[in-house]
């Protein structure tokens, strides 16, 4: 038997992620694939904590902790520093959705506009988890967070970051999920081989933030794909869209929603609305994919 993902563990145990953290899984896969000639620029996010307290670190490659809004620009600087010294290193910005969709989007947009040679990875858990579950631009419609209380749950859809990035015409963009590590590994390999700004969004459930059972992390990540709530894609040069995981018989969204406390307050109408949105978005996506 061959293992379906790289064997070497670069990320070590003892880290401070919660039980069943999707973000920890995402990091584990990423390091396995990118290897040790990699450095991370990490802004404020759960990973600022997960990595462990000074003078400890769980990841065993260089991590440069940076300001919340500065994952991309710090990575650009690191890359430039290596380049001028003649060193060839994978420079990765590793940020949460808050640090990507919201406070970090400017630095990311700037790096992409310049086509700086960095790989930007966002592990998306759909809220500010490190500060205790506040809404982000990535939080889905109708979800509960502490700043979108049940009396007034999120009234805006999840920001379509992928289309935003595609509009930057970056050489490579992909979405991935912790439930599909082989697909993720492939995309990382591809991203690694390309020069310029690359962007990868990894869907990474967060049990406490989603009010979900830790054991369901992978299950939820899979259900998101199977219900077409989150689609696995690849985009080249912002123009060529491709679906890497085709779902023949999508499951109803309720199967995904019902396992999460953050959706507990949903009415039937809410669920139908979400289901409709999923269909609508799927059609829009099909249009882009050209199918």
């Amino acid at each position: 038997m061959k293992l379906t993902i790289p064997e070497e563990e670069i990320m070590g145990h003892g880290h401070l992620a919660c039980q069943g953290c999707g973000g920890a899984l995402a990091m584990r896969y990423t390091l396995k694939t990118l290897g040790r000639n990699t450095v991370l620029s990490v802004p404020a996010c759960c990973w600022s904590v997960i990595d462990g307290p000074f003078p400890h670190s769980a990841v065993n490659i260089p991590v440069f902790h940076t300001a919340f809004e500065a994952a991309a620009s710090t990575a650009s600087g690191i890359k430039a520093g290596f380049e001028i010294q003649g060193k060839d290193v994978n420079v990765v910005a590793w940020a949460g959705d808050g640090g990507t969709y919201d406070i970090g989007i400017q630095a990311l947009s700037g790096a992409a506009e310049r086509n700086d040679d960095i790989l930007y990875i966002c592990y998306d858990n759909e809220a500010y988890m490190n500060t205790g579950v506040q809404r982000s631009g990535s939080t889905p419609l109708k979800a509960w967070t502490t700043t979108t209380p049940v009396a007034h749950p999120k009234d805006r859809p999840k920001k379509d970051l992928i289309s935003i990035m595609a509009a930057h015409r970056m050489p490579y963009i992909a979405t991935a999920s912790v439930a599909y590590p082989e697909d993720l590994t492939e995309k990382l390999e591809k991203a690694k081989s390309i020069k310029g700004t690359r962007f990868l969004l990894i869907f990474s459930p967060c049990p406490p933030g989603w009010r979900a059972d830790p054991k369901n992390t992978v299950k939820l990540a899979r259900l998101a794909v199977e219900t077409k709530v989150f689609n696995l894609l690849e985009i080249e040069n912002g123009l060529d869209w491709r679906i890497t995981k085709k779902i023949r018989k999508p499951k109803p969204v309720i199967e995904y929603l019902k396992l999460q406390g953050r959706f507990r307050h949903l009415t039937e109408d809410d669920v139908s609305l979400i289901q409709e949105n999923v269909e609508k978005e799927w059609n829009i996506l099909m249009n882009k994919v050209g199918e």
Partner: protein
Amino acid sequence: MPEKTEKQIVFDKVKDTPPLAVSLYTMDYNKTGSWRNVRPVIDYEKCTGCMTCWKFCPEPAIDAEKYEEDGKEKYKPVIDYEYCKGCGICWVECPVEGAIYTEEEGE
């Protein structure tokens, strides 16, 4: 390479502290097995060695032990209870009914 350590390092004196906050040690000291409420146990009788559990453990707290059988390289999952947080992903994802069962950690 960073050093492993059995105890959390706290520098006692300024002179021992590096000039900036750089890591010098791994997180191995942090025995997250203590966080566990429920303990996964692999029933090797049933386990097929598909390594799905290994693949999905976020810690990682399942080692992939290589061995040879019938001239073929195979893997066997071994849970590291020092670090397993008991999240439950492995038993949910294991495709073989009963290959991972659970026990309550207790008083």
